[in-house]
């Protein structure tokens, strides 16, 4: 089949006629909307899968003592929960949004490299299979934490190799996907769409893609050193040969900290899209938002060792990383102020996407402040590797990234499906999620302050009450997401017909096309004034 598409091609061949249907429509797809849909479903599947693991973790932690799972299995659950949520749920969800929205927002007919785009998606599948299959190999899944610190990860069995290769493949997928997105944004904008006229979501993804291309290869390097230390006798992380286990942490977090912003910048983009729509007012301080995003991206490469304050760096290193980390809260603060100023004097309504966005601004800021607390090195010494950190990163990753994703799904679902979702059920989902989330994670600040280490399957009795509350919250949070699934399926299958505009206050090219968005859009580029 190698040359069929080339030989059959003419300028108007790429309409929906003659396109494969059924499974082949998806397998062979070169359409950004279909690929975006696949990314989003993949992400949601992984979200439920890793969420189920979290239920297992919280069931074990419901009471002191070992009830359901043994310590080694517990470590496997926390490790896989982290890896799958980060690489399987949050990142692919944002790529799904990028696929659907970036071409629609900049008036491009598709992504710059449609076939590579599909490859980026299909590479997720073998990676997911490797990660999940590793549960069933002798010795069980990886249990050394998602950060895979050696020498613990050098002790691990073949599941570690499977996970390393899974991450290599995900890295290829991310890099190819990011090159595609950057190229699309730089080269495929409709005439008149200057960089400083681009929707904020496109800007955040441009910068995210840059972070991905810069960070993922470094992770690949770290993982390669891990493989050679495991199997080929190198001594990168072994002091006897002149290496250093902490070297891995440096290389890993040089990737890992930009990774944190990779998972939050597109969320910022979604908020900056939704809030102006429902405030019926343009985004406040667009230019400063762009600069703040760029500043965060630059700073994110010089803060990595704040994950390693307890490794015993020299004073100079500790001070540098403390100051740079504190500094990053300035541009982040600017963003929060801008969102509040966007709401100020607006004419607000609170449909589900707006509810999620307001909650994200509020809850993410809590996570931001706990991040500032952790940035203060002496305080971090007390809180490093405790439940305080667990609370912190769930406030930025769940009530930051994941809830922004949910808000984004409600916001664009009518454009994607052509139907309005069930507003009442959407609100139920929002309130259940928000309340259950806080019941789960707010008490973790207290257990962390009181001294409960993270990644332990059993704890002393002083922490029992808060852990029970957290577990109850977690079960409610998990169940609430089934409602989300139901709302989405219901919306796909039917519902009130969505107009092209969908939201009264929405602005941008994506609202000028029909709902659902036709298979091909902007084949002739629109003119942007």
């Amino acid at each position: 089949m190698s040359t069929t598409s080339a030989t059959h091609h003419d300028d108007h061949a790429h309409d929906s006629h003659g396109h494969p249907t059924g499974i082949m429509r998806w397998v062979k797809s070169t359409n950004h909307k279909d690929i975006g849909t696949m990314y989003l479903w993949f992400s949601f599947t992984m979200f439920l899968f890793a969420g189920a693991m979290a239920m297992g973790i919280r069931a074990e932690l419901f009471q002191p003592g070992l009830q359901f799972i043994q310590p080694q299995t517990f470590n496997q659950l926390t490790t896989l929960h982290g890896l799958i949520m980060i690489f399987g749920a949050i990142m692919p969800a944002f790529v799904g949004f990028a696929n659907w929205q970036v071409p629609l927002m900049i008036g491009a007919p598709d992504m710059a490299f449609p076939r590579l785009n599909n490859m980026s998606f299909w590479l997720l599948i073998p990676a997911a299979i490797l990660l999940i299959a590793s549960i069933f190999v002798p010795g069980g899944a990886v249990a050394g934490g998602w950060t895979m610190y050696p020498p613990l990860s050098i002790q691990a069995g073949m599941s570690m190799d499977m996970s390393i290769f899974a991450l290599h493949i995900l890295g290829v997928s991310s890099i190819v996907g990011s090159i595609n997105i950057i190229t699309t944004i730089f080269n495929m904008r409709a005439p008149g769409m200057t960089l400083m006229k681009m929707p904020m979501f496109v800007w955040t993804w441009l910068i995210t893609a840059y972070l991905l291309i810069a960070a993922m290869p470094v992770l690949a390097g770290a993982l390669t050193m891990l493989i050679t230390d495991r199997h080929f006798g190198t001594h990168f992380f072994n002091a006897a040969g002149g290496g250093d286990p902490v070297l891995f942490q440096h290389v890993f977090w040089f990737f890992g900290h930009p990774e944190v912003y990779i998972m939050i910048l597109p969320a910022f983009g979604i908020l900056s899209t939704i809030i102006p729509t429902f405030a019926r007012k343009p985004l406040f301080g667009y230019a400063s938002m762009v600069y703040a995003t760029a500043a965060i991206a630059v700073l994110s490469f010089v803060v990595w060792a704040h994950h390693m304050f307890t490794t015993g760096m020299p004073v100079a290193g500790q001070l540098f990383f403390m100051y740079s980390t504190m500094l990053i809260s300035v541009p982040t603060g600017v963003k929060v102020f801008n969102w509040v100023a966007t709401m100020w004097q607006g004419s607000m309504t609170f449909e589900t996407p707006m509810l999620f966005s307001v909650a994200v601004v509020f809850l993410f800021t809590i996570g931001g402040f706990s991040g500032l607390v952790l940035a203060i090195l002496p305080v971090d010494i007390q809180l490093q590797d405790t439940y305080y950190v667990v609370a912190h990163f769930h406030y930025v990753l769940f009530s930051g990234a994941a809830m922004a994703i949910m808000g984004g799904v409600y916001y664009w679902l009518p454009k994607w499906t052509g139907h309005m979702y069930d507003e009442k059920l959407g609100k139920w989902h929002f309130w259940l999620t928000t309340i259950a989330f806080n019941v789960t994670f707010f008490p973790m600040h207290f257990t962390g302050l009181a001294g409960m280490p993270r990644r332990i399957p059993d704890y002393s009795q002083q922490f029992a009450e808060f852990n029970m509350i957290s577990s109850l919250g977690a079960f409610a949070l998990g169940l609430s997401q089934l409602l989300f699934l139901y709302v989405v399926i219901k919306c796909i299958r039917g519902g009130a017909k969505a107009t092209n505009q969908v939201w009264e206050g929405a602005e941008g090219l994506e609202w000028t096309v029909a709902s659902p968005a036709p298979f091909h859009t902007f084949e002739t580029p629109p003119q942007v004034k």
Partner: protein
Amino acid sequence: MNKKASFFPSKLLSALLGTVLSMVMGSAQAAYELNLKAPVTEIAGQIYNLHMLIVYVCLVIFVVVFSVMFYSIYKHRKSVGHKAVQFHEHHMLEVVWTIIPALILIAMAVPATKTIFAMKDTTAADMTVKVTGYQWKWEYDYLDKDVRFISTLTTPQDQIDNKAEKGENYLLEVDNPMVVPAGKKVRVVLTAQDVIHAWWVPEFGVKQDAIPGFIKEVWFKVDKEGTYRGQCAELCGKAHGFMPIVVEAVSEDKYNEWIASKQEAAKTADAGSDKEWTKEDLMVAGKTVYEKNCAVCHQASGAGLPPAFPALTGSKVATGAIEGHLDIILKGKNVMPKWTMLSDVDIAAVTTYERNALGNAVGDVLQPAAVKAARAKL
């Protein structure tokens, strides 16, 4: 959907709040610790105050920013007829809210920097203890005092498995606590044998990773006598949650007494390795050593957890040549560490036990003297 969208479904909210409240009330007698543990060193005190300072500053900013937001949410709604005012820039405002946070940050950084310098100053210590992390126990070596011992968890497995009532210090109790004199500056030099561990006592404000092959230094000076409990704070494998740290800060006299008694015990043990032991005595001692050190991987029954942790029952090592058996204990293999930190008597006892219990019945006995000889050849 642009007609009146209600802010929240009130029925749902009240139902959920009710559930949460009743749950919290149900166990109202419990201690809900909300803050860092009460500090007992100067550094931990500084950390405590730093934390409070930051929390209060953050709280003020939080309340100000979100008062504005919620006021806006309340007043600037379409449902109350508010019309959007179309502005989208205000340079002065943007400069102000960039500069003010930066100034606040500088104000926070100053005390934090002072504390960092204080934490890092390990000079002029009164004594030094080398602490080594093992999977999953701590070794304390009082340098220049010839006092060296292993500290392991003593919480019985039955409590962990919910077969027995949990004790007061569940998971935070050890056989041999670290003992230090109150009021003296103790320098701790940390390392690890196998993987990275972290030595953490919350009341001291000390947490430091123990990194295999490297030495990292921290210090503390305890103001108040008492027993302080901490845990390993870096994921180190299966029993990461089961390797607590217990430090007893005592008066200087009591400390000197304790050191003397430890030195005495070491001498007795040393003498023990030269005498001939009976099989019965070795078996009794070996059972204790085995359950404290070996059962975590090889299991109390000897069945192991294959493939990571092989069974001892019927194993080639435990039923083969006794020299080979001893060799693995002294040198380690794969995940298994070398057990040279155990005394000659302990190693002899546990080897004998492994060969004549756990379903094995080889019948031979290993004498401590043989261990001593083998150790000398390492």
